[in-house]
């Protein structure tokens, strides 16, 4: 059994975006704050902090989850991936490229969470329907786009990846 007192810290060791990370964390530190702070993964956006908005969605051991609803201390030994794993401006992931082409973002606050969700979902569901993507996006709040271009972009990307 492992134990950490409320005032104490436990050293955790995990992989974040392909890099080994070792850090001492207090039990109450949320994964979202751990990623943005010590790990400097600023692509993890923190919106509502109670699991509703989806902006902090990351991948933990292959599953898309809310980083604000996990404790950092729970991820000892895990592999955590943020939006950084998708691509860079010069070599965009098909999802990112389609988001740009379809104007699927405006302010961009919700985008990293949606990209991680979509990438993970498409691995399991390579040929989604429009309805599937709408349901997927029910787990994300976007206040700019009205969602339609996001659905279009994800469907485009799914088709590109099937080719």
């Amino acid at each position, binding site marked *: *059994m492992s*134990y950490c007192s*409320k005032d104490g810290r*436990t050293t955790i060791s995990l992989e974040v975006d392909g890099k080994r990370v070792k850090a001492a964390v207090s*039990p*109450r530190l949320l994964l979202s704050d751990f990623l943005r702070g010590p790990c400097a993964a600023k692509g993890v956006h923190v919106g509502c902090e*109670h699991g509703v908005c989806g902006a902090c969605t990351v991948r933990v051991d292959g599953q*898309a989850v809310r980083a604000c609803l*996990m404790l950092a201390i729970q991820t000892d030994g895990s592999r955590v991936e943020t939006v950084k794993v998708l691509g860079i401006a010069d070599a965009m992931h098909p999802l990112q490229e389609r988001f740009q082409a379809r104007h699927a973002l405006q302010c961009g606050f919700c985008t990293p969470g949606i990209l991680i969700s979509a990438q993970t979902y498409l691995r399991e569901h390579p040929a989604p329907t429009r309805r599937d993507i709408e349901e997927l996006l029910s*787990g994300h709040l976007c206040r700019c786009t009205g969602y339609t271009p996001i659905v279009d972009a994800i469907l485009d990307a799914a088709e590109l990846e099937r080719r």
Partner: protein
Amino acid sequence: MKPAPFDYYCPRSLDEALALLAQYGDEAKVLAGGQSLVPAMNMRLARPGVIVDVNRLPEAAVIERCDGSLRVGMLARQADLERMPVALDAVPLLAQALPHVGHWQTRNRGTVCGSLAHADPSAELPLAIVVLDGAIEARSSARGTRWIAAGQFFESYFQTALQNDEIVVGASFPARREGWGYAFEEFAGRHGDFAIVAVACAVALEPNGVASEVRLGLGGVADKPHLAPLTAYCGRVLSQRDLPEIANAAVADIEPPSDLRGSARYRRALATNLAQRALTRALASARTACDGLAQ
């Protein structure tokens, strides 16, 4: 929006976890999927002094068919069930209810047993297990294992028959039986939001078309899943024309709450409509099941 400080334990065996609960009583909270507990902690609605994180218990995520039931272990995620066609086929009501439970992203973490233990009165899984007449397996270090019938498990808003030193170690959902039809209906503001009203329905038909059981439960209309008393409609052949009357009877004795998402009057109207829809689909699916038997 950060949790208040707490002492953190991560036991590696169920015995260790149970010993911690016996030691700390109501000071301790069990952390499984955390999709309800952690938001409550972030908002400081819950301030447990001790967290017992059960996520590293071995063997706790088992999902298996046994004796006409589907047994779901304490750490089985809601999405684990969704990804198991055998399980969904075994319990059609669960297959219909699961897509309404939160969002895909929260079902990846949220556990079936955690949702039962949390006992939100508008939650889908408590409603489904009550309508199916399933059972919850609770364990403590002092008293060992006991099974609690779903009908007795849910007591009020976020209140269950669980004692402070007990953990839900599993749940048993009765599998589909011959001649039964099932339907789940829900209305929420957006897909994945808390249900304003949810309805689960199970109907059993004899080969001659007589309804031997009509079970209908309502979520979001009371402090716990509400099982409508519909025995008066058993022992009869039911036609589509009877369904409005049964739906009205199903909501006759509810006193739904009024809140920002809907007035009591609105909830009652919604419950009536959803009940009729669920009855229609459950009856049709029971008929198909019976036709399958006859052939």
